């Protein structure tokens, strides 16, 4: 008796989607924190730090996410580090995220008019306060749409976790397709779930971007 793709099977996919969301949020949080460091390094006054961060970004933007994940998951254990699939994915996706967000936020920091930080410096405000109170709040506004579109990319990127065997949405789909022999319906449903997770974010990002342009 072959199972049919019905409501119960759809709920199984939704349970997989939960891990997609958890993994995305985890990578976005950790990667965001690292990304801020990358962005600050990339805009720092020390050349060595700028070059270092530019190389870091180049490496992650110039290689496929899949290879980065394979490297962490299959490569690191060779060096004697035991990595669980969740740990490997969190490390891999966070590093990936930090490089992309670092580049996006570098752009936003540099888009804040120079006069702002010059004025802060003239008032004798130190680096930390200048960044936290003057530059970053303005950069945040400028970088928000691109950050949200990156989040959409990240959510889509977590589908690669299926290839490492983590049962998130895509992997649940694979399992379901193997059980029901209805790949068309199953992958269609998987795609729709991703679509309804990502669409509101895409819409949000486009809206904010339009509003930003309207202000200027």
């Amino acid at each position: 008796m072959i199972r049919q793709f019905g409501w119960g099977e759809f709920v199984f996919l939704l349970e997989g989607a939960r891990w997609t969301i958890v993994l995305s949020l985890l990578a976005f949080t950790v990667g965001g924190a690292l990304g801020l460091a990358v962005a600050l390094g990339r805009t720092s006054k020390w050349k060595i730090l700028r070059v270092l961060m530019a190389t870091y970004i180049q490496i992650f933007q110039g290689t496929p996410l899949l290879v980065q994940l394979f490297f962490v998951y299959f490569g690191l254990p060779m060096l004697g580090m035991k990595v669980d699939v969740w740990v490997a994915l969190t490390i891999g996706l966070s590093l990936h995220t930090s490089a992309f967000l670092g580049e996006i936020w570098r752009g936003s920091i540099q888009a804040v008019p120079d006069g702002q930080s010059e004025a802060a410096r003239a008032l004798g405000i130190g680096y930390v306060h200048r960044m936290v109170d003057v530059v970053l709040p303005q950069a945040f506004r400028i970088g928000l749409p691109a950050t949200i579109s990156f989040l959409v990319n990240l959510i889509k990127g977590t589908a690669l976790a299926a290839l490492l065997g983590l049962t998130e949405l895509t992997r649940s789909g694979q399992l379901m397709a193997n059980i029901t022999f209805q790949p068309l319906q199953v992958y269609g449903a998987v795609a729709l779930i991703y679509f309804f997770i990502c669409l509101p974010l895409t819409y949000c990002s486009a809206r904010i971007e339009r509003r930003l342009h309207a202000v200027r």
Partner: protein
Amino acid sequence: MNYTFDFSPVLAAWPTLLEGVIGTLRMSSLSMVFGLSLGIVFMLMRLSNQKVLRIIAIGYIELIRNTPILVQVFFVFFGMPAIGIRLSGEQAAILAMTLNCAAYAAEIVRGGVQSIRPGQIEAGRALGMHTADIYRFIVFRPAIRAVYPALCSQFILMMLNSSLVSSVSAEELTYFAQTLDSQTFRSFEIYLTLGVIYLVLSQFFSAALSMIGRVYFSYPAK
């Protein structure tokens, strides 16, 4: 840490890796060409006066852009046989990547076309040019010029994304690397080398494409 690095099995397998590089380039460039052509069709639909065409184009573009390419690849490779279309790994990969690229290319090219001022088109019409000629000489060339860098990054992105069609056994670089990994168990060396190869490829193509762009799209227009 008592691991001895040994790159020799990886280096010895260079003919296989080269075959992989060729596979990767073949699949990504074919998908780019087909995707760009299909993308232009969707872009024209997106800008058409007919509401139905517009809605179809927007629906398609948003559907593709908001779902993972891996799921699109699975949908094509595993789903198509269910409606009687049997595809090899490579055909499925190229089809999925083409469909994916079309949506992104449509949006990129639309940006370029909409950057053309209406006055230019009106001037063309005033000179008595045909609509086709107006599109060819006044709209497309400058539009492509404007979005050429974005199209180049789209190509690089396609090349990097093509790594995941290894999951449907399309024979490209990552596929061969995985095979090599299961034969030699030198995962660290293999994936490090793999990363370096992709990095070199993406750097090379981004430099080469921007050079081509500088020559081909140089001002004054040829």
